[in-house]
């Protein structure tokens, strides 16, 4: 036996070493400058309920637990929220949003001017700011970044490596050479002054610049890393990138030369992936992590009741809806769509699914947004009225219909399956017989985009705080086949949305959007359900953490108590 087991051991060991040798650099990507190797071996490793933020060397380390890993750390080329959450700490843009709203504040641009015709924007940049690699931040760097996003032929566009800057295309009307592309020229006036010339006015141009997707990367880093920039981000933000263990954790450390004195407070930030929500909560309760996002609303009560934990909410920034394909009978009849809206018990859904952390929605726009029309009439739960409307449409006996959905959890709807079941139940009461068809996320997107659906469940989350992103994307006829899943078309609404997009006076825009919502509410292409209030939980040791509606908030001012 002894002989055999040692043979076995030898085989295994040599096999393992062979495989290890084959793997190249062993998998964990670190910057050359990673200073923590010696520190981590010196630190003691304490487990269980003891707060372990302060290691033997006295460092403040914050662990942020989230449900999925980032896709990429190059902000422009990804739309994934888990990526933005991290890149927000590493890279900065010209403007930024306020802590809890979409109000704009200066960031890398300390001041700006807009011409009267809305076609020229001039930005005055912060001076003496450096990137993490030591190179200076200046207007040239800004120009290179914007050109990189707009032009697939640009040397740093990395188009052949699969980089697509879809947010840029969506927010700025397309890419270089496209008809709708809004940025015509970018002029570097001097090192700290830059001018954007637009081909047409864009009401939310400034709002776009606050988005984390348009943060500025060091051109020297783009040169050095090329397409690997997605795994080696270099910006001007409060934290520098250290390492990324895929599907596990991303480690960031304090940038000593950050442009704001005294920030950041933390020495290290670690973003930890914990896919299972129950495990995440357990980790928070045991002190293994300090902040957890995507708390199950049902667990909110648990968190509130527990000493040492605090419940936080994000401002409403989304809505969930049952979409109706307006091109498919009988959904092409307005009365039928309205009937369906009356038949669904939105409040019950809000209570069942969100444990109260949701408000019912009557507009496809969150209430705090510019132009939100509170005067539209709400379609409150009224099965009788629904049946009347069906009769009016000649469908008093009801009909059969298919509801497609994907069980994947989304920010506006943690549990689409349950919503589908409730809707199915509700519609059964008015004689509409619903069959639920479940799909995986990827084919689901395709189905809905191609208009191959009747009823479907989706939602929408805000990005730049502007109503255009909601209303145009979802309901402008030009977006049929991309983000207008209901295939809704109403020329009046189109015109109102187009005018609002081009207007620069915010009051004018608000009025136009209000009018659009009236019409939309009557046409009812969607049965709006709820605006969710995402909940998260933090340990009481965490100070100054303010969750942002966009789900990417800066951790620069966050501190840890002992």
């Amino acid at each position, binding site marked *: *036996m002894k002989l055999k087991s040692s043979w076995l051991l030898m085989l295994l060991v040599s096999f393992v070493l062979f495989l*290890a040798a084959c793997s190249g650099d062993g998998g964990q990507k670190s910057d050359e400058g990673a200073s923590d190797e010696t520190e981590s071996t010196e630190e003691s490793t304490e487990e*269980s309920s003891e707060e*372990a933020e302060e290691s033997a060397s006295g460092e403040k380390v914050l662990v942020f637990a989230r449900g999925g890993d980032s896709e990429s750390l190059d902000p422009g080329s990804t739309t994934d929220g888990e990526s933005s959450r991290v890149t927000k700490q590493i890279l900065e843009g010209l403007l930024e949003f306020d802590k809890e709203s979409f109000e704009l504040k200066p960031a890398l641009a300390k001041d700006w001017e807009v011409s009267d015709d809305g076609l020229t924007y001039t930005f005055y940049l912060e001076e003496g700011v450096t990137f993490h690699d030591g190179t200076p931040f200046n207007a040239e760097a800004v120009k290179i970044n914007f050109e990189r996003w707009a032009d697939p032929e640009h040397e740093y566009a990395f188009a052949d490596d699969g980089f697509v800057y879809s947010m840029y295309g969506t927010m700025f009307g397309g890419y270089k050479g496209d008809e709708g592309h809004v940025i015509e020229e970018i002029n570097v006036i001097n090192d700290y002054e830059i001018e954007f010339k637009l081909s047409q006015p864009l009401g939310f141009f400034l709002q776009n610049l606050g988005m984390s997707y348009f943060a500025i990367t060091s051109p020297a880093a783009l040169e050095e890393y090329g397409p690997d920039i997605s795994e080696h981000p270099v910006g001007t933000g409060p934290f520098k990138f250290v*390492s990324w263990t895929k599907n596990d954790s991303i480690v960031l450390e304090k940038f000593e030369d950050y442009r704001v004195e005294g920030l950041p407070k933390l020495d290290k930030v670690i973003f930890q992936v914990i896919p*299972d929500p129950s495990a995440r909560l357990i980790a928070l309760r045991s002190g293994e992590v300090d902040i957890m996002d995507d708390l199950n609303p049902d667990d909110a009560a648990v968190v509130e009741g527990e000493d040492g934990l605090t419940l936080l909410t994000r401002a409403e920034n989304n809505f969930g809806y049952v979409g109706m394909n307006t091109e498919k009978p009988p959904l092409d009849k307005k009365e039928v769509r309205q009937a369906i809206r009356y038949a669904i018990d939105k409040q019950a859904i809000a209570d069942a699914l969100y444990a109260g952390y949701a408000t019912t929605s009557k507009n496809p726009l969150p209430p705090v947004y510019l132009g939100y029309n509170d005067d539209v009439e709400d379609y409150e739960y009224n099965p009788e009225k629904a049946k009347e409307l069906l009769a009016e449409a000649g469908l008093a006996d009801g009909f059969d219909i298919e509801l497609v959905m994907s069980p994947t959890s989304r920010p506006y709807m943690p549990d689409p399956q349950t919503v589908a079941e409730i809707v199915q139940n509700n519609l059964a009461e008015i004689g509409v017989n619903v069959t639920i068809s479940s799909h995986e996320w990827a*084919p689901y997107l395709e189905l809905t985009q191609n208009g191959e659906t009747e009823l479907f469940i989706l939602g929408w989350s805000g990005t730049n705080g502007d109503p255009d992103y909601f209303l145009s*994307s979802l309901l402008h006829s030009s977006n049929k086949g991309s983000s207008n899943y209901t295939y809704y078309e109403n020329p009046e609404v189109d015109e109102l949305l187009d005018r609002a997009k081009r207007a620069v006076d915010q009051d004018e825009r608000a009025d136009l959007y209000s009018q659009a919502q009236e019409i939309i509410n009557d046409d009812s292409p969607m049965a709006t359900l709820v605006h969710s209030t995402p909940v998260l939980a933090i340990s009481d040791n965490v100070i100054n953490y303010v969750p942002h509606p966009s789900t990417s908030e800066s951790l620069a001012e966050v501190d840890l108590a002992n």
Partner: protein
Amino acid sequence: MFAYVMRRLLMLIPVLFGMTLITFSIVHLIPGNPAKVILGEGAPAQAIADLEERMGLNEPLYVQYGNYIMGLLQGDLGTSLKSKGEIAQEIWPHLAATMELTFFAMLFAVIIGVNAGIISAWKQNSWFDFLAMVFALIGVSMPVFWLALMEQWIFAQELGWLPAYGRQDSRDPIAEITGFYVLDSLIHLDFERTITILKHLVLPSIALGTIPMAIIARMTRSSMLEVMKSDYIRTVRAKGGGQFLVIYKHALKNATIPVLTVIGLQTGVLLGGAILTETIFSWPGIGRYVYEAISFRDYPVIQSGILVIAFMFVIINLIVDILYKKIDPRIKY
């Protein structure tokens, strides 16, 4: 012997080739493509079309397959469509994580299983026997993910004895060398860290190792019962004195082959099938890597991932077969 190994390795090639073909076909039969998933709900149709073009998704299938195989022959496992990273580099840490877990799960299964089986047989029909066999039966019948959830709830939360997730303490990541954290911590001579890492291994290893443990326990028990019936043993027992140890050793010898069989088969199951346990315990393993690739339609990752898992499975079985020969020279080829 050497000829045998060579022959087996050669036979590996058509099997692996067949697998790439099957995987490729299966994967491309799945509706939906990664372009949409990457760009999300809000993407304009044009952007999606552009991305599809750039990813080479519009090329005829045989061209896509051909490109993949060419790359494979040069040692290039492809590039992930999602992360744009090289798969050969990405896959190793995931594989190491799963291998480490599988190793400890099997260790648990063998140590507990074999000994439980031997003692059960020795004390046949006693309360120990009854309980052990009932536990083994329950172990084989329980959904693994349920067991994992329960473990986490009880030991991590209610009792707080063990960590709830991951391979290590988040705040204090190890400086990786091989990717096997236990080994790495020993190389660093950081024994406290070794303890922490072992603690993180306990719950998932038990969850994963329960089924193999149950199978091994039952097999060892019947094998031991056989052994105890044989004339040789009866003689030893009649002679009295030190009998347990003799029987123990003899039973171990006899149990080796069936146990090896189980290890060979189950390791394959654990390598690729640990998805649920890896999700529940946030273990960054290869099961999760490939599963998430399926959801994402990350074709190169799915293909290369399955290939690597299958390769490991076949190698392990080869090792098992070689060990058979060593242990039981009666076996002919």
